[in-house]
């Protein structure tokens, strides 16, 4: 009896992510959702620039690599040309909330019928741990070596709350993957974000609070705790928009 197997929507390519990084979990949840909805053959994914730049090697569906921050614009083009396909963008915090904020907000405001998976780990991972738009106050990074100071470096951006000011999005939820319970909840949210698109309902956005032990300078276990202790107080979990509800 098979009790556990790799989702079909993931390739056999070994992931390059650091030990304790939660990208792998989220990749799996996206792939499970694609499998369960039976949409792999018509799904087109957009990979970002950042740690998950090579996501196109890991998903079995057709994949497009976008320029830094431009995934929602690329996804818009794909969806307009191929309205019957399922289109998702997978982006990190630097990509989505800094250089690509204009594309993020505008795509959400247009209510494009796509699914966006937003990995918020409060840091730029691939370039070696610089301050992100979502870095916490006081957070030490390579470019905030004395801790993020709001006087000169501003405050972290809460993207779900920001997008909740727009009329068009149908579904906005923030989840995390730092415990079995939270992983199961994240799975439910991600699947719903894809289901919405299958049903033609419009823009769905899932923010996943994620761990970056390498650049946070923590053990994987401590990093998961830090999500509870530091990230969630700044970024409360929950549903910010659900037009169905």
């Amino acid at each position: 009896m098979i009790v556990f197997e790799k989702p079909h929507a993931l390739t056999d390519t070994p992931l390059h992510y650091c030990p304790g990084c939660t990208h792998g979990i989220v990749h799996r949840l996206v792939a499970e959702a694609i499998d369960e909805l039976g949409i792999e053959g018509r799904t087109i994914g957009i990979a970002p620039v950042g740690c998950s730049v090579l996501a196109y090697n890991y998903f079995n569906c057709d994949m497009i690599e976008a320029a830094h921050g431009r995934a929602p614009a690329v996804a818009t083009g794909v969806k307009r040309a191929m309205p019957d396909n399922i289109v998702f963008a997978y982006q990190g915090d630097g990509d989505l909330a800094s250089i690509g904020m204009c594309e993020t907000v505008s795509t959400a405001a247009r209510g494009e019928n796509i699914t966006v998976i937003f990995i918020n780990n409060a840091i730029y991972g691939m370039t070696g741990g610089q301050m992100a738009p979502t870095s916490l106050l006081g957070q030490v990074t390579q470019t905030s070596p004395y801790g993020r100071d709001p006087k000169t470096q501003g405050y972290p951006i809460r993207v779900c709350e920001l997008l909740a000011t727009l009329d068009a999005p149908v579904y906005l939820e923030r989840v995390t993957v730092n415990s079995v319970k939270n992983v199961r909840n994240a799975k439910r949210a991600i699947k719903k974000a894809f289901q919405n698109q299958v049903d033609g309902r419009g823009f769905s956005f899932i923010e996943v609070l994620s761990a970056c032990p390498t650049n946070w300078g923590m053990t994987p276990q401590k990093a998961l705790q830090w999500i509870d202790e530091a990230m969630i107080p700044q970024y409360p979990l929950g549903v910010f928009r659900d037009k169905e509800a």
Partner: protein
Amino acid sequence: MKETVLMKGNEAIAEAAILAGCRHYFGYPITPQTEVAAYMAKKMPKIGGTFLQAESEIAAINMVYGVASTGHPAMTSSSSPGISLKAEGISYLAGADLPALIVNVQRGGPGLGGIQPSQSDYFFTTRGPGHGDFHVLVFAPSSVQEMADLTGRALHLAWKYRMPAMLLADGTMGQMMEPVTLPDACNAFGDDNPWAATGTEMKRPHNIITSLDLSPENLEKQNFERFERYKKIEETECLWEEYLLDDADICIVACGITARVSRNAIVEARKQGLKVGMLRPITLWPFPKKALAAAAEHVGAFLCVEMNMGQMKEDVELAIRCKKPVALCSRVGGMIPTPDEVLEHIRKIAEGGDNA
């Protein structure tokens, strides 16, 4: 007989793109090309196409990238400052070997510059507008008829060679009205694009559209392969027009509106007994180097007439290996040279006084 209609240059681009089979347009307002977007906004919804006013030039070119990734023809249009913003996306299109049409109806620069016509994006465009080693096909229309004809040609060649193509018009071409005979509707793009991201339908391995390759050996190979393609294009896709060149002592080199101004000057010069002709590049990349080198064998001097500070002049000097002197008649900032100004330069060269 085909119908001839009176059209503005920018509208001719839009209609020709639709006739050539393009159904996806993404733009952002900027003078002097906004009529392209306005035309598309009216027409595309009625023919089942996409018109989308993007949030920025950057978003527009990335939407084009998205459509191109699925194997459908797509285009965007802008003017000089907007093309600077598109440079990122153009580089990614080139790196991912995707076809697209980008229209640049040039205005004076640098910076915000002005809104009057210019040809000052010549370097920027012909050297590959963006980071990295690449080229785009560059077409320089000199009439509203050519705005229409070259739009279709640019789309189809972009498709044939899987690379971006740019229609590089000066603002004059975008704004003026002329009779134009529109081309027949066609669709040369086909549905069979095995490389495109269209969904695997669980029947094939996944397609990946990317410009990233972290292996320097592989990335070098890709660059070499791309330049092999470019070499073929240089051999086969050069377009130019010669005017009274056979017996000419002086050869004017000009494109776009300055070629038309020069034509008037040539007619006047000939009346005065001066043997002047013209070689008008229609493709700026590939540049008609061989035709210019051939002209250098029998003319005494060249005169570039440009609405920039002599950008094309450098290509002419390279093409003829500096065998003959190349003079420059130039106006910039939105100013257009007059036939009298061109004639003045011709006279100086004839008298041996303007050898640059």
